[in-house]
């Protein structure tokens, strides 16, 4: 899952790349959402008294509940979500997937022990670890999205990569996910906590790749190498090298090849089978659909269809579903509020990007004048 320790590293060495914003400030933005990740999140988080929500015949409905209400929350705030589903995992992810399967087996054993001992907290914890998104879940989610009039895309391979390609092509504003490898795939803006519940009052965290690169003074290739060194889903890392050391090494040598050349192999053992070049290729040229061929369309929701699908067997409250459908309809109408920064260009800041003392930071600030006539009006897409 993601890149190990990257959030922390960015927080420490490029704080300017992280911004916090309220969800209502994202009105009018198109956002690509990593569907598998959010469904998983819903299965874990949307529960009642520790148990997943189920239909009359015991089928899980947590994912539908989560998807329905959290999508409406976004739409209600003027956001246009598009969900991206995972395709086939790349072969290189096999190792990672095996590891996950092992962990699951381990959790099953632990669960049996906890059940015997009657330790409810432990049972709960292990139950959550056993959660797996299966095909029924994803198929039901796709059906629900169609009824809601929200578009979805099936990525040929990794959803993260597809999202990033869409951000790069300007099809969407940002990727919403909790996985940091979205940045490694080149998604310029990553939003976290987008699909969290309203009740948590969690502001959206925005990560800007360009600012990360600028603050760390890396090229994209160097950044990818750093991520591989930190630990990604595709290959192992060098034992004994943590986030701090990995950054120091890339700072000094600028690429993994040079790092290996200069590394004291007695102290740090390079994994025997270390396909970092292959991992690099996956990050740089992942298997994605050409974003230009993707036609994103937000349709009118099918209220009756939603009621038929969610109420009845699945035990949803009809009134609330109809209420939700009304909100979706309302958001479809009318105009979108424009933003000033699409008309006026942001002037480059002449402040130092490294953290400094308040006094010295203020000194570096000059009144921004003399910009008149410099920028041209730019129309939003």
């Amino acid at each position, binding site marked *: 899952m993601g890149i190990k320790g990257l959030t922390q590293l960015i927080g420490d060495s490029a704080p*300017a790349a992280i911004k916090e*914003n*309220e969800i*209502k*400030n994202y*009105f009018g933005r198109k956002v690509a959402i990593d569907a598998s990740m959010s469904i998983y999140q819903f299965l874990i988080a949307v529960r009642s008294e520790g148990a997943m929500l189920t239909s009359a015949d015991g089928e899980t409905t947590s994912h539908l509940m989560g998807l329905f209400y959290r999508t409406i929350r976004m739409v209600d705030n003027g956001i246009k979500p598009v969900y991206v589903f995972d395709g086939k995992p790349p072969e290189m992810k096999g190792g990672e997937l095996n590891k996950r399967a092992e962990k699951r087996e381990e959790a099953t054993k632990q669960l049996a022990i906890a059940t015997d001992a009657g330790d409810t907290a432990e049972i709960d914890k292990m139950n959550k670890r056993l959660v797996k998104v299966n095909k029924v879940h994803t198929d039901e989610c796709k059906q629900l999205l169609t009824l809601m009039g929200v578009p979805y895309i099936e990525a040929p391979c990794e959803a993260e990569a597809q999202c990033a390609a869409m951000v790069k092509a300007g099809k969407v504003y940002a990727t919403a996910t909790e996985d940091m490898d979205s940045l490694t795939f080149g998604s310029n803006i990553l939003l976290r906590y987008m699909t969290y519940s309203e009740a948590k009052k969690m502001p959206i965290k925005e990560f800007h790749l360009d600012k990360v690169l600028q603050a760390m003074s890396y090229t994209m290739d160097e950044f990818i190498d750093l991520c591989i060194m930190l630990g990604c889903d595709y290959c192992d890392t060098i034992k004994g090298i943590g986030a701090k050391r990995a950054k120091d090494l890339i700072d000094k040598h600028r690429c993994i090849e040079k790092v290996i050349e200069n590394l004291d192999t007695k102290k740090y053992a390079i994994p025997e089978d270390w396909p970092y070049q292959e991992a690099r290729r996956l990050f740089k040229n992942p298997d994605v659909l050409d974003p230009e061929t993707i036609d994103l*369309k*937000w349709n009118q929701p099918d209220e009756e269809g939603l009621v038929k699908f969610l109420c009845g067997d699945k035990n949803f409250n009809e009134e609330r579903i109809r209420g939700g459908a009304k909100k979706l309809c309302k958001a*479809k*109408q*009318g*105009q*979108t*509020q*424009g*933003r*000033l*920064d*699409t*008309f*006026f*260009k*942001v*002037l480059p*800041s002449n*402040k130092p990007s490294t953290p400094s003392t*308040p*006094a010295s*930071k*203020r*000194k570096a*600030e*000059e*009144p*921004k*004048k003399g*910009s*008149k*006539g*410099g*920028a*041209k*009006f730019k*129309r*939003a897409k």
Partner: protein
Amino acid sequence: MFEARLLQGSLLKKVMEALKELLNEAAWDCSDAGIQLQAMDNSHVSLVSLNLRAEGFDKYRCDRNLSMGMNLGSMSKILKCASNEDIITIKAQDNADTVTFVFESPEQDKVSDYEMKLMNLDQEHLGIPETDYACTIRLPSSEFARICRDLSQFGESMVISCTKEGVRFSATGDIGTGNIKLAQSAKVDKEEEAVVIEMQEPVSLTFACRYLNSFTKATSLSKSVQLSMSPEVPLVVEYKIEDIGHVRYYLAPKIEDEEAA
């Protein structure tokens, strides 16, 4: 060392009213030319640009450029402590992390000073190009405030359309519609009561009432207000502050949805 003394202290109180509804905090950029402030609201839909020229102050001194990040809520609290007749002086040392406001009563028998902590702000500045607008409309500021207030009862947004005949403000909502038409004044005794329209081409744009209503908090700064519009660019609402500068608001228009059939 920075020092600016303003005889008409009430002016700063009014400026504060004009800013604080849209902005929570802002950087006051001081140079030997005067004080400037530019900031967008949180949602990046509107922008406030304030300019107070050095010569408008009774005394003005700015040895080196400085940018003071202030919490406008706190600043407003401090300015509430000044009476309308007071003379206000703003003072700061170079590289200080506080700013001092001094209020003197006209008879000089009471002097109060308040020190406020500054903030470290990381704000984006926008480059605003000089634009020839297709329409400019000058009208009494109280009239504009009234129009915004009245029409915001009808809907969230307001259409401003300017033609040869005059300017029309309209809003539509659940309860019905409202339209206000203003014609160019033929002859007026006082210039500030006139409605003056200059137009190259007709323009019609839609704006959120919420922001327009916030802009009208500057009404007390000026008798008249000027609206400038061009197709598909932000609206400019300018209040001139006599003898010293202006406050300008920019507001992004609402845009038709590309997908909407």
